[in-house]
């Protein structure tokens, strides 16, 4: 299943300039794994070595912070949108 992922400005060097990409997966963790397949180096930018989301990155499914959901295990359904957002000052660099 593919979902739309919004990429913030600092990560667009990795996503070859794309602000929005399609990625496959049934959970946020799966989607990040697919992003890594499409754009090598993405995982390192998003996750710490232990698989946790980096401290200064917030991930939203639709409008909800995944820390209010099920973290990286948060499941996705068709039509969901995943936003990757710098955490500082809510710093969301991706455009809608």
């Amino acid at each position, binding site marked *: 299943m593919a979902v739309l992922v919004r990429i913030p400005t*600092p990560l667009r060097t990795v996503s070859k300039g794309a602000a929005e990409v399609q990625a496959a997966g049934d959970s946020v963790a799966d989607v990040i794994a697919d992003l890594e397949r499409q754009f090598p180096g993405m995982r390192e*930018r998003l996750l710490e070595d232990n698989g946790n989301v980096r401290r*200064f990155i917030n991930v939203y499914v639709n409008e909800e912070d995944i820390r209010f959901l099920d973290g990286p295990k948060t499941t996705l359904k068709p039509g969901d949108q995943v936003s990757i957002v710098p955490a500082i*000052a*809510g*710093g969301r660099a991706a455009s809608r």
Partner: protein
Amino acid sequence: MDRVRGLTCRECGRSYPTAPAHVCEFCFGPLEVDYDYAAIRPLVSRARIEAGPRSIWRYAPLLPVELSPDGEPPVGAAVGFTPLIRARNLGEELGVRELYVKNDSVCHPTWSFKDRVVSVAFAKALEFGFDTVACASTGNLANSVAAHAAEARLAAYVFIPADLEPSKVTATLVYQPTVVAVHGTYDEVNRLCSEVADKYPWAFVNINIRPYYAEGSKTYAYEIAEQLGWRAPAHVVVPCAGGSLLTKVAKAFKELRLLGLIPEGQTRMHAAQAAGCGPIVTMIKNDTDVLVPVRPQTIAKSLAIGNPADGYYAYRAVKDSGGHGEHATDEEIVQGMRLLARTEGIFTETAGGVTVAAARKLVESGRIPRDEPVVICITGNGLKTPDALQDRLSVDVTIRPSLSVFDQALADLKSSRASEL
């Protein structure tokens, strides 16, 4: 500017040039102003600072902005240098021998410590060539951004939660910025603003200008140290919303020590938050550096940030200094406001009530020893949030303009108070 090398990432240490940027492109860590303290050292001394203007600009060499050749800042010339009060009555009430209140409820011009950060942010925004400023705010920042934009003749967009206290909205509207009320919490407003900041070429003081803006908070602590006779207190109790003020107060004392302006020592940083929105204090109490965001539910709306940007660093500053933190319930917040007013004649907003209530708990639990110097940070004015008290206070008696009626009323009041005792 020789004093400032540029920006560095607090997390991974990567360097960036001085620019309107706030996030590390690699790890998304926050960017911070990188000073060359060797270049600053010859510019500062106790005597030089004391000879400076009675405003935050006496500390200009420690800020990331340039003054004009005649020493004038571009905006906010009269900001800061607020009173540090020796709070004997409140000290007696709390059982603390040496207690002080740093009173930014009378900061010029909008009665909160935000005037410090905004004037520094605007100086930088003007230097960068912006003609429009903006912010996401829980109220005090909105007031200050709107006021300083008027002074600097900048266009201003102010984004606030739609349920903000009416008095804070009025105190923003009067300066005639564009006010955008957003249905949502501050965190949601802020998230929207991050998107707006990415799309419109505006100086968002708490987003793309944040590294410079946050430095303005240091002046609050510089003043405390100078007003104590060039020493830092053993304890400071700081209200936390985004957590920036606490981290910058800690940084300021460190800088003053580094520059030899105050003696070596340790100031214990204590965080004060509302029970209904206290993610930083929760980290401290649970001894974890993982912040769990919350949905705010408190009368202290100026502190109602459930996902604080500097939460991690505020936690670190508290832990590294050997300090602690306390939560205050809505009832305790009101009691704190009333206690400060009754003992020291200072009317603070709900955030100040949080700080007083937290200080009381920290003393009662022994986290703050009763024989060490303590400074309580009062950062906003009570007239901004009268709604918090309106339902709890009433006039004692209403009478006709007649002396005999007054005599009777007074007798009744005295007897009813005597029976209460």
